């Protein structure tokens, strides 16, 4: 292990964020590297110094003052609730497009429903593409088809939900997903 890598891992080591293998590798390096041992010592000193900072006593009348202000100020919850709705125009358009795609997909795999589509002129581009893709889907084995449709359906469902959920929930969802990825 290089010292540069060890320097990054030392803090994670102190915060118990390393895997067993990483701990072993780091400890092996530490046993042979006095510079990194010195680094660890310094970091431990800093952590200890931070840990022993005494909590400060809040003012004795804090609760009383808070509750006084709480009593005096009415809630303005309704404005906030309305602020969440309706979704913006862009979000609505996105949802409509995604829902249309989903509907087309459903019609595509149901032969009995295909007749409902308005493709009187069999030679226009849309109808040709539609029929070609229907044939293509027909040639794939049914279990593969179900898997593909299941995945696409799930993705579309998630996308529609997220589009409607609003910006705040969307961003926290993305952050949650990012955190699930191995760093």
């Amino acid at each position, binding site marked *: 292990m290089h010292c540069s890598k060890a320097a990054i891992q030392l803090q994670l080591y102190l915060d118990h964020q390393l895997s067993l293998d990483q701990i072993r590798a780091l400890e092996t390096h530490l046993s042979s590297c006095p510079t990194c041992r010195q680094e660890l010592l310094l970091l431990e000193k800093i*952590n200890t110094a*931070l840990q022993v900072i005494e909590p*400060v006593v*809040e003012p004795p009348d804090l*609760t009383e003052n808070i509750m006084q202000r*709480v009593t005096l100020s009415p809630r303005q*919850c309704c404005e906030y609730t309305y602020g969440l709705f309706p979704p913006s125009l862009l979000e609505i358009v996105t949802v409509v497009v995604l829902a249309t795609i989903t509907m087309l997909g459903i019609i595509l795999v149901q032969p009995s429903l295909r007749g409902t589509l308005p493709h009187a002129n069999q030679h226009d581009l849309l109808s040709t593409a539609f029929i070609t893709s229907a044939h293509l889907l027909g040639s794939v084995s049914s279990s593969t088809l179900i898997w593909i449709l299941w995945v696409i359906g799930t993705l579309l469902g998630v996308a529609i939900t997220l589009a409607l959920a609003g910006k705040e929930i969307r961003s926290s969802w993305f*952050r949650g997903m990012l955190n699930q990825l191995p760093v």
Partner: protein
Amino acid sequence: MNDYPLQSPQSLSLSLPDATSTCTAQNDVELVAASVAGDQDAFAQLVQRHQRRVFNLVFRMVQKYEEADEITQETFLAAWQGLPSFRGDARFSTWLYRIAYNCSLKQLEQSKRDKALQAAIQSRIELDKQVQAEAHDCQTLVREQLSTLPAKYRVVLILRHLQEMTYEEIAEILTMPIGTIKTHLFRARNLLKERLEAFERELNTRTRG
């Protein structure tokens, strides 16, 4: 930076109530539900349960006792008004600390004191370097340097060490990915480390001299 003196003998064994334990979180849920329905007594209990942690977080951020008092009050007031929109997907304490952090940041930005304070403390440190090197130990130095760090680095150290939170909890409060929390903690401690190294070097030179 001098800490506010602990006033009463009882406060010498002062501790932060453990707001992150499962038991407290469970009780919080009931009190939050009652508070949403308008029960002010229930909310008063929530205030008493969390005010010390919130106050300490805010105090370490804004570093003025009177301002911390005002911002803590604002935090709880905002929490009371926002409770109906609290969806319960995070713990109440997490949500509350997020409000407290945002209120502190707003205050810091408003007064632009963060920069001015840093400059003031830096110049004071330059002036008093000699005295400090002799009089202060590592702990005092770290505490003083903590107050000169940029707000985004200071807050992760406060949450991690003074409030003993996990990376996950910090990420949730600051609404940042865990990767960013790791980076900020790393840089924050590195800054402290550099300053401590400089201090120790100077101390050694002095001792030898």
